[in-house]
């Protein structure tokens, strides 16, 4: 059951030479018939639980909002953004690589947003 839970994560890493910070925000979840959210990662700011049931938090708006809030908290501007989204309509039989041969029953969706927080010196040079 825990493997069928969603998960939200926000990772950052700073480049030592330039001071730029790479931000990777991801969220994934499971859906019934590709429409109804069963369990998704909790994208709320102060989340009590890492997973939320029957609520769709795997959206571009919510993922981008968390990335933008992090950038605002660091006092930097978020740029070089790119989305990498994946959706799987087949459900693998647990423990195997064989999918249940009926698509769109239990589906998986993931959104990944990558961006770069540039420090103030780099932003001035761009101007």
């Amino acid at each position: 059951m825990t493997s069928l839970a969603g998960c939200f994560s926000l990772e950052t890493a700073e480049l030592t030479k330039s001071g730029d910070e790479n931000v990777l925000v991801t969220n994934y979840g499971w859906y019934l018939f590709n429409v109804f959210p069963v369990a998704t990662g909790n994208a709320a700011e102060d989340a009590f639980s890492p997973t939320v049931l029957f609520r769709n938090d795997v959206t571009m708006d919510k993922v981008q909002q968390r990335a933008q809030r992090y950038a605002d908290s660091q006092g930097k501007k978020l740029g070089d953004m790119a989305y990498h989204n994946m959706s799987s309509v087949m459900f693998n039989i647990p423990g195997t690589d064989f999918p249940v041969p009926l698509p769109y029953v239990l589906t998986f969706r993931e959104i990944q947003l990558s961006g770069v927080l540039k420090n103030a010196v780099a932003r001035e040079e761009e101007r």
Partner: protein
Amino acid sequence: MAAGKSASAAVAVLCAALCGCASINVSRVGKVMVDVENTNWLLFNFIPLASGNPERPNANDCRFFRDTVNLANNIDMVDRAVRENGAVGVRDLVSYTTDEYVLFVLLKHHAMHTSAELVMPGDETRGGEVQKVESRLIREERMTAEPPPESPERVEAPFSPVWRPGGGLKLMDF
């Protein structure tokens, strides 16, 4: 008899479920980001069963036995998002594909994604390259709108023989 009926029912459900989908998703939190997706189902990795309709995205519209999943159609949908949102161009354009297989290569669910940031008016002065997306549709509109040139331009060959008086024939003149 009962097994045959349940098998045919399963095939009918499978056929109904095997449908492509084209979608344009726009997020306007801070920057305006667009994510375009088009999917299809392929039999034996090359026979198209169903594809999304890029001319009607977000409409659950499907084109049967046609393959519409290609980069040109994705860029056309990005261009549509540019026009509908009043943007002047795109930045950080990225495209990629994902695949899922059923019973090895019997069935393949193929998806092509394109992600970009829409550059809004007044935002062009930020550093970095702004890529003006000119899809096939825009190019066709521009070519039909422009008047034909009155006289053809004279194209000078890079190498042309030059006869110099008192000298020989010089083939190149830099």
